[in-house]
């Protein structure tokens, strides 16, 4: 199976606020900054029109056995530069938990995956091999610094 050997580094903090994007309850809001290095050249074969690349965080909490949150995504068209060298990226979407499960969560895993969109045919979803574990701190961040 073709791989992209992406490399992700991160740094993170956490707050507890009302989820203003939806449910009006106080939930944990995580902030992650990351770097991504990847060479996607080998994934583009004759039938690949584009890649939908996304970084997702996966973790378990008391409330939910499995949580997955897409933090960032990027569309890479055939012909775009397949070598990615992204630094100090902030998550594109709010990383709200369904509850307060990020506090002290040692096992939040970041994975880079991609959806291959062909010119015609099957739409595979591939997860990059290798992932990064992001432990969240026990304390909430009270100063604004995002």
């Amino acid at each position, binding site marked *: 199976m073709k791989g992209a050997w992406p490399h992700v580094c991160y740094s993170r903090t956490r707050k507890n606020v009302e989820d203003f994007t939806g*449910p009006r309850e106080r939930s944990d809001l995580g902030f992650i900054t990351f770097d991504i290095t990847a060479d996607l050249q080998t994934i583009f074969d004759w039938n690949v*029109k584009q890649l939908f690349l996304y970084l997702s965080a996966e973790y378990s909490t008391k409330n*939910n056995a*499995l949580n*997955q949150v*897409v933090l960032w995504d990027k569309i890479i*068209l055939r012909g775009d530069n397949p070598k990615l060298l992204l630094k100090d990226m902030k998550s594109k979407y709010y990383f709200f938990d369904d509850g307060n499960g990020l506090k002290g969560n040692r096992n939040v895993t970041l994975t880079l995956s991609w959806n291959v969109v062909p010119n015609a045919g099957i739409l595979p979803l591939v997860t990059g091999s290798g992932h990064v574990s992001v432990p969240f701190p026990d304390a909430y961040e009270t100063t604004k610094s995002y």
Partner: protein
Amino acid sequence: MIVSSALMIWKGLIVVTGSESPIVVVLSGSMEPAFHRGDLLFLTNFQDDPIRAGEIVVFKVEGRDIPIVHRVIKIHEKENGNIKFLTKGDNNEVDDRGLYKKGQNWLEKKDVVGRARGFLPYVGMVTIIMNDYPKFKYALLAVMGAYVLLKRES
């Protein structure tokens, strides 16, 4: 003969894929540049297939008939398998909460019509043309009807 074979194939597809609507036409540009209006999508809806972030799902909002094709960006699943998830069109700035029912913040398994597994560009344009130009649809039906009648006579 042709009509009943076509019907049998369609019903067969519904059973094999587990989806009430195994083939759908993309109606909007909210998933561009991957899918455009008129593209055809092939779906499966196996109950055992877990819903995971990144998947492209076709769902219906309660009370509305039109299926929407978007990507799952957030899931929260309980140990017993109960799952609630959020979707967003690749080409949209914001997630789909504005599209859901008033007060609804999440989608559930029951809202899903199927998962997009395969795709063919342009082929579905015929359906859109027939929808937008009813005269074309009637003309096509008339031609098909005439064909069936004439075939029988010989």
